[in-house]
C-alpha cells in the first residue's frame, strides 16, 4: 500500500508557515517516512497539470497557507479542495486573512497606485502596472487578476481544519499530522489548538491584579516592558485574553505582548470586538472626555485588534469600498 499523499501549498503569505514545516526539523523525516509529499512548491518543482491529473480526493490532506487575493490562488484552492480529502487552513493568513488582510482597509486602486506609482522605493517611470491579459507579437500571456478583497481560505472553499498561528508552531503541526495519520480526528471545522485563551499558558498570568483599571494605554515601543509583569497591568494592549492558546505563549515569553495571531476561541465571532469590549470596560474614567483621553493610547483600533483577523471579522472589509477599485 502506498503512503498517503500530503500536499503543501502557499497563497498570499510571507513564507513563515513554510518555515514551520522546516522547523519540524528531524521530525520532518518522520513525517516523510509516513507520507508522500506530492506537492510543495517552496521545496519541489511541480506543474499545475500534475495536480490536475491527479484523481479527485487522491491527496489525503492539503495544508494550505496564505490568504486568497488573486484569481490564481482561488483556482488552486478550488483545485486542491477537489483533490484532497482534508483541506487544512494552515496558519493565520489562511484561517483569518492574516497580515495581508489588513489591505481590506484600502481600495484596490489605492494599493496598486501606491505599489506601482507612489512608493518611494520604486523605479517605474512608465508607471507600468501588471496586465491581466496582453497581446504582444502574437503572444497572449495572462497574469492572475488581483482581487478587490482579501479572503480567508474558507471564504473561497470548504475547509476541514484550521491550524492557527503566525506561524503555526511545529508542535501543533505535528499534532495535526498525528491526528490525521491515526484517524483520531476532531469534529470538522475544528481549530487544532486548545480552546482556551492565551492567559491560560502565559507565565505572567499570576502577576495580573484583579483590579486593573486602565488610565492609559501604551504601545510596546513607548515603554520598556517589565519582563515579568502582565502586559495589561502595565497598560500595554495584549490580545492574550481574546486569543487562543497553543503557541506556548511565545511572544509574552519574549517580552512582547500577544498580537492575536491564533484568532479567537470557538465561542467568539469577532476577536477584535471582544478584546475591545474587555479593555474598554476596564477603563477607569467615567466621562466621555476622560475615556477618550485614555483611549488615545490606541490610535489604530482596527490595526491593533484585527492585525490578523480582519478578513474573518464580522465586517470583513472597510464597508464603504466598492468593487470597481474606488472607495473613500
Amino acid at each position: 500500500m502506498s503512503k498517503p499523499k500530503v500536499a503543501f501549498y502557499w497563497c498570499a503569505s510571507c513564507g513563515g508557515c513554510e518555515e514551520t514545516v522546516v522547523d519540524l526539523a528531524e521530525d520532518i523525516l518522520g513525517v516523510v517516512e509516513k507520507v508522500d509529499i506530492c506537492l510543495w512548491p517552496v521545496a519541489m518543482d511541480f506543474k499545475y497539470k500534475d495536480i490536475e491529473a491527479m484523481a479527485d480526493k487522491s491527496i489525503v490532506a492539503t495544508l494550505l497557507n496564505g490568504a486568497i487575493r488573486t484569481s490564481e490562488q482561488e483556482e488552486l484552492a478550488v483545485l486542491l479542495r477537489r483533490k484532497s480529502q482534508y483541506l487544512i487552513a494552515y496558519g493565520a493568513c489562511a484561517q483569518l486573512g492574516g497580515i495581508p488582510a489588513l489591505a481590506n482597509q484600502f481600495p484596490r486602486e489605492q494599493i496598486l497606485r501606491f505599489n506601482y506609482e507612489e512608493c518611494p522605493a520604486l523605479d517605474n517611470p512608465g508607471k507600468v502596472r501588471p496586465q491581466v491579459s496582453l497581446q504582444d507579437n502574437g503572444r497572449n500571456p495572462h497574469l492572475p487578476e488581483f482581487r478587490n478583497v482579501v479572503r480567508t481560505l474558507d471564504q473561497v472553499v470548504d475547509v476541514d481544519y484550521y491550524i492557527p498561528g503566525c506561524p503555526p508552531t511545529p508542535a501543533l503541526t505535528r499534532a495535526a499530522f498525528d491526528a490525521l495519520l491515526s484517524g483520531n480526528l476532531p469534529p470538522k471545522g475544528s481549530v487544532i489548538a486548545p480552546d482556551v485563551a492565551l492567559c491560560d499558558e502565559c507565565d505572567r498570568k499570576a502577576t495580573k491584579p484583579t483590579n486593573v483599571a486602565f488610565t492609559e494605554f501604551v504601545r510596546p515601543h513607548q515603554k520598556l516592558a517589565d519582563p515579568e509583569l502582565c502586559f495589561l497591568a502595565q497598560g500595554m494592549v495584549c490580545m492574550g485574553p481574546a486569543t487562543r492558546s497553543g503557541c506556548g505563549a511565545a511572544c509574552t515569553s519574549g517580552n512582547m505582548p500577544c498580537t492575536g495571531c491564533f484568532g479567537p476561541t470557538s465561542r467568539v465571532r469577532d476577536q477584535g470586538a471582544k478584546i475591545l469590549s474587555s479593555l474598554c470596560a476596564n477603563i477607569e474614567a467615567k466621562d466621555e472626555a476622560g475615556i477618550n483621553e485614555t483611549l488615545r493610547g490606541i490610535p489604530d483600533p482596527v490595526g491593533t485588534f484585527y492585525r490578523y483577523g480582519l478578513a474573518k471579522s464580522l465586517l470583513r472589509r472597510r464597508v464603504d469600498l466598492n468593487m470597481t477599485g474606488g472607495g473613500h
Partner: protein
Amino acid sequence: MAKQEQEVRIGFYVCHCGTNIAAMVDCPEVAQFVGTLPGVVLSKDYKYMCSDPGQELIQQDIREHRLNRVVVASCSPLLHEPTFRSATEKGGLNQFYFHMVNIREHDSWVHTDRAEATSKAKALAQAAVHRVAHHKPLETKRVSINPTTLVVGAGIAGIHAAMTIANSGKKVILVEREPTIGGHMAKFDKTFPTLDCAACILTPKMSDVGSHENIQVLSYSEVTKVDGFVGNYTVTVKRKPRYIDEEACIGCQDCIPACVFKQPKFADEFNEGLGKRRPVYIPFPQATPQIVAIDPNTCLNFKKGEDGGRVVSDKCKKTCVEACGDKNAIDFTQVERIEEYEVGSVIVATGFQTFDARRAPAYGYGRFPNVYTSLEIERLVNASGPTGGHVVMRDGKSEPRSVGIIHCVGSRDKKTNVWCSRVCCMYSMKLAHLLKEHTGAEIYNFYIDVRTPGKGYEEFYNKLLDEGVHFIRGRVGEVTDWAMTPDEEGKLVIRVEDTLAGYVRRIPVDMVVLATGLEPQQDAQDVRRMFNMSCGSEGFFLERHPKLAPVNTFNDGIYIAGACQGPKDIPDTVAQAGAAAAEVLALIDKGFVEQEPNTAFILEDECSGCKSCIPLCPYTAILFDEGKGRAYINEALCKGCGTCVGSCPSGSIVQNLFDDEEIFSEIEGVLAYE
C-alpha cells in the same frame, strides 16, 4: 454549545388584546406568517391570551401537540411574562422555554401605519422564534426573607405601615430624619372633610408607635446606604447627634426653661418660623419620642470661633445640664453614629415637600408680610400653634377682615410644576372655613377648577358655599400693594379675571393665602438611587404599575407609600400604607422569593483566568480560584446584569436567559424579515 437533543416544536400565539393590538396589527396575518417558519408547529391568534381560556389554550396545545417551546406576542413582558411562564409550566414544560414578544407597547400603541406595524410584529415574532429554539430549562432559586422590615419616613404613611406590620408580630425599624415622627400631618389643625382634629387622631398613633414592642424608632436619623437584594438587605443608618442621651432622657423637659436664653429666640421649624424656640427644645408637646434636642447652630456651647474651631462661649452657663441633674442626659460630646441593620423588605414613605412660594413671584410671598403659605395658616389656626389659634397677621395684633386664598400655586403650571396637587382645593376650603370661623372675615377663593373627588368632599364644598365664602373662577394675575382707589389703600390687591362673570376685578384684602402644591422632596433623587427605584418625570417615585402594582417598585422588596409616590390626601395615604404593609406581610409569610435565574456562570474548562471580568462586577460576585487559575461566580451574589458576559474576551461566561446564542439568534431573526 448546548446540544439540541430533541426536535424543536414551537407553539406561537399572537394576542389581539381586544382591539389594542388588533386595530393596528393584522394578527391573523402574523399568525399565518409565523406558521411558515421552521420549527413552528402551530401558530394561532386569539382575542385575549392572558385570559383563562388563553392560558388554557397554551397548556392544551403543549400537551396535544407535544410543544416544547412557547412564544406569545402580546404586551410588555414586564406586565405578563409571569402569567405566560406559569401557563407554560402548567402545560408541563419548564417555564423558561417561553419567550414573549412585545407588540403592544412597542408596536400597536406607538405606530400609525397598519402595514408597517404588522411587518414589525412579524419581525419581532420571528426574532422570538429564532431565539426560543436556543432556550434551556432553568430552575429558579429560592431565597429566604428576613422578617424585619425597614420603614423610611415616619409621617402618617410610615406610621400606619409600621403599625400594621408590627401588629402582626413582625419587627419594624422606623427611620425618621426629624427629631420627632409625625410628618406633615402633625402640623395640621383639622383634617378635611370631617374637620376632626389632626392631633387627636394622629398623636395617639404616634405614641403607640413609640411604645410598640415590635417597632424600633430611629428618629433624627437617615438611611445612607442600602446593600443586598429582596429578602436580605443591609441598611446603613446615620444617627445624627441630638446631644441628648436618648436612653437617659425621660422627657421631663426641665432643661428647656433652664436655658440661658430666657426668651425663645430662634425660628421654630415646626411652626414654619411663625414661632420661636430655644436652642434646647422639643418640636411640639406631643412629639415622639419625648426627647429634647439641642440645636448646635444656635446653642452657645457650640459657638464657632473665628477660625471655625469650637469656642465654648463663656455666656453658656450649662444651665440645662444643671437642670437635668442626675439624669445626665445632656451630652455635648455626642457625634454622628453609623449603624447597620439587616432587613428583608423596605417601605419608602418619605413624603413630599410643599412648593416654595417664592418661585411664584407675582404673588409677593416674601415681599409682602401678609402673604402666607397654607402651611403657615395651618399653624396659625392651630390651638397649639404659635398664637394659640388666634389668627393675627405678622404685626402680631390685627386680625384679617378679608382673606384671598389663591389655589394652584406651583401646580398646573408649566413654569413650575405641571401636575394637579390633588389636596389643595380641599385644604383651601378647609382653611377658608377655619379662617372664617376664627375671624369672620370675607374669604375669597381663587381657583381654576374646584376638584373635590372624594367621599364627602363635594358636600364640604357645598357647606362652604352655604357659609358665604366667595368662589371666583380665575387664576390670579398678581398680588400688589399699590392702590387705585381709596379702599385699596394699605391693602393687598388681587387682580384677577372673574372668568365666570367675564370681568377683570381688583379685590383688596388684608391677607393672602397661597395654596402651595406638593412636590417631591429635595433629595428624592438620592433616595431613589439608594433604593434603586425609578422616578416619574415629575420626580415622584414610580410604582411598578399604576393600577396593578401601585405600591410596588421595579426593585423587588422595596415598596412605596404616601405622597412620595405622588400627591395624595390622608385617606389615600393611609390606604396605600396599608397596601404596602400587606405586600410586605405577604412576602414575609411566604418566607422566600424565587429569583429570576438570569445569573451568569463561568465555563470552568474554558476560562483562561485572565481576570478581566473580576473588576467589572459591582457586587464582587466574581472570585478567582488561585488553585485552578480560573475565575468563578458566586451565584448568590450575582444579580444578572451580564456586564461580565459582554466583556469576557474569550466568550467563557454565560448568562442564563441572555446567552450569546440566544441574543445572536434574536438579532438575526429580527433582521430576517424585510
